[in-house]
């Protein structure tokens, strides 16, 4: 489901339905998509749109500084360009030459390419939603990363492991678990999309840090 221009009654209605089972527009944490949509709303949604109202109250609780730190998120607007450009221009007008990442910068060169990409994302999103539900196959994996000895710098090891980035890989919590003889192993969780991430490849990547890593094992593997 997508929703249209939220400044219209129809769009707002769709938006309300859209938010019925979602706390945020995109994903499970606030993103710029929430900020954009928030800014485009001219007034507080009426009580007859309780989900939109809930969302509105929630987003308005964040300060502007906090809002700047949100990640970019794709915004399933139908008519995107008009609403996104406006904030970009106000930002420039305010004379902000700050060092914050200017997330709206690309909109300055709002061109055919960007529009095409957005439309594509939109279509893909709509396709995904309209098909019979297919959950992205994900797995939650706990990895045991073993060092050579008790002198290995576990902090550096953890940093190296977390530095591995792959599409569809999200690192989770970690802890040090004593194995014996003063040696600790790093137990770290991650969530991977099965289609995108090969666990074997991930293991190999970790084992490349030969200075720290003696071996990597899968301690737990759960499909989610």
């Amino acid at each position, binding site marked *: 489901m997508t929703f249209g221009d939220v400044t219209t009654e129809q769009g707002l209605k769709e938006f309300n339905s859209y938010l019925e089972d979602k706390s945020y527009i995109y994903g499970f944490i606030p993103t710029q998509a929430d900020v954009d949509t928030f800014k485009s709303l001219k007034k507080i949604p009426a009580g007859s749109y309780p989900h939109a109202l809930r969302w509105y109250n929630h987003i308005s609780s964040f300060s502007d500084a906090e809002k700047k730190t949100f990640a970019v998120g794709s915004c399933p607007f139908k008519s995107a360009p008009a609403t996104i450009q406006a904030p970009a221009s106000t930002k420039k007008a305010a004379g902000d030459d700050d060092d914050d990442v200017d997330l709206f910068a690309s909109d300055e060169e709002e061109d055919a390419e960007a529009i095409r990409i957005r439309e594509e994302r939109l279509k893909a999103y709509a396709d995904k939603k309209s098909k019979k539900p297919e959950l992205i196959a994900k797995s939650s994996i706990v990895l045991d990363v073993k060092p050579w000895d008790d002198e290995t710098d576990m902090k550096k090891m953890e940093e190296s492991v977390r530095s591995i980035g792959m599409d569809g890989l999200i690192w989770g919590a970690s*802890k040090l*678990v*004593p*194995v*014996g*003889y003063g040696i600790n192993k790093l137990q770290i969780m991650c969530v991977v999309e099965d289609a995108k991430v090969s666990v*074997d490849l991930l293991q190999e990547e970790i084992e490349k840090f030969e200075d720290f890593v003696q071996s990597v094992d899968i301690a737990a593997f*759960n499909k989610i």
Partner: protein
Amino acid sequence: MLTLYTNDTNPAALKILIAANFGKADVNLKILQVNDKSLEEPKILPYLEITTNRGIFIPNAAARYLYPPVTSEHKCEHWIAWESTILSPLIIHIAGNTKSDTIKTSLNSCLKYLNENVKDRIPLVDNAIQVCDIIIWSTLYPLHKDSNLAAEYLSEFHELNNWMKSFGDRKEVQNALAKIKINAGAGAYVALASGARCTSNVAVNLSASNITQSPQHAVEAITADEVKAAREAWFSDAEKLPPPKDDIYPVLPKPGEKNILITSALPYVNNVPHLGNIIGCVLSADVFARFSRLCNYNTLFICGTDEYGTATETKALEEGLTPQQICDKYFEVHNSIYRWFNIGFDYFGRTTTPEQTKTVQEMFLALNNNGFMQIQAIDQLLCEHCNRYLADRFVEGICPHPGCKYEDARGDQCDGCGKLVNAVELINPRCKVCSKTPVIRNSQQYFLDLPKLEPLLLHWMEKSAPGWSHNASVIAKSWMKEGLKPRCITRDLKWGIPVPVEGFQDKVFYVWFDAPIGYMSMTERYTKQWEKWWRPAADTKVSLYQFMAKDNVPFHSVMFPAMLLGANKNYITVSHLMATEYLNYEDGKFSKSRGIGVFGNDAQDTGIPSDVWRFYLLYIRPEGQDSSFSWVDLATKSTKCNSELLNNFGNFVNRALMFAEKFFNSFVPVMKLTEEDFIFIAREMKGYMYERNEGIRFFFRKS
């Protein structure tokens, strides 16, 4: 400006007002009815409104907010917890049920306890009035005010009485009492209960001390005791261990020992087994059976082929043999395949035996005598062209369930939505053999009265289901939620067990009635003392583990237990129902007719040893969700088989041997273990025992 909404005479509101006075906050009071329409969720009274969108509906939280603890917060919290979970629920019951002696004694213990604590200390914590005093006092106030109740409960607690009086004289309290009148005794507590809307369970039997231990947190240090235990275990002689049990025949359950009865779902004789069948049923059961024997439990593993039914009948016609000959032929196919896979059945049998006929008929008569059978006339589909009544699997049509419309729904179950179907309900039915439309004939059949058995079944399921795999209990629960209907258990067919009732002798029992009884008759073929397993004596505890793929769950979780319970002969029922999801073949389904998948002897024909197949199948056992067989996975370098067996296990063994050869002259030297070593052993054993106690589900995850 804060507003307190409350129903009349509610001591929880008093609590909040007093707290407001101590905390010097201004609170507006509004009295409402409990059913006032303007109330929004959570609709609990009293409700302290802070802003239009924010408020507190738990009185203690509101009191705390208005007058936070000044010192020793944890002691205050302790008292507050005591008041909310112990004192308050008890006192509310006094309002309702003053006849229960246990409640009276419990309340008495509470008041005694309180009395002890106010003896030298007024107030309760650190000599200054804190919110906990307010909370407890307010809850006791109606009791104290009521002369009858006070006489009954407070007469011997002088210190408590004094405390109630002196606290009540304080101006903050008097001021609050002026704002809201609180009735004495039950009236106030009824208001308290109705405002709260929820009931909390009362803690009774407070004198008994049920001390429960928490599991040690994983990262806590190993205790010295555990290290000592590890050391002792290491050095103790192997002779002290119980000897492994000899292979005896027959294996029988013994009182005082652990007895495990294992079944895997009977494969239909006509269907050539494929990898999915194997991992779903026999292989999983086999691994568990081996484990069970290693643990020295009395273990019996039974399985066999399910042979009655029209499919065999039809196949017989096709091949020009009798049904019995067909069964004999295909039974051998199953038998040899399982033998190659090294499945260690104690007995692999068949349903076409005199024992089966006898047991099925006895079961039917028992259920009939106990009133769990009905006769109804039903419509059955007759294919005039083939001149036979069509068994469910020989009719196909459009699924009748709303919203499904799957075109190839079978006469017993729809593959599209998974729901059970009655063949006569199919839309546009067609005979599977000749594709002609069958006609409907009316015929009398026996029905198992599942609705009558439902209460018994529910009660049993509640106790048994915790031991099942998660998918099994979900499936069973949804079945029960739908409500059970009587299930037809006889058919107008030829190849089957005849119904032992006058007028019904040319009908046979439906395959799902006779198949599970096969477990029992096959045990009987194994040993004449089979009833020791299936109708164990009172002093012998037997656990029944049943393995199957999830499409068999309804029959094993509802039908079969219903039959066993209804027969009322103390038959054992399943305690651990282990169901697997589906195994796909390279992301598609296995299909014999289309030649897709690994069937029968295909595995053997590859030349890959059965142990490797066993390992791989167990590795990809579809537990939480479907999994997929993949040749690439099985064979090539970067994947499971090779990396697990070669790189991990093989490598480990190899390295250990080389190490011994290089440094110890190929001998394993006598070990001198250090403290560190014992700590390591203790830690590993603790982890292992914890995991083992988690039970069979974890067992399979580990394998």
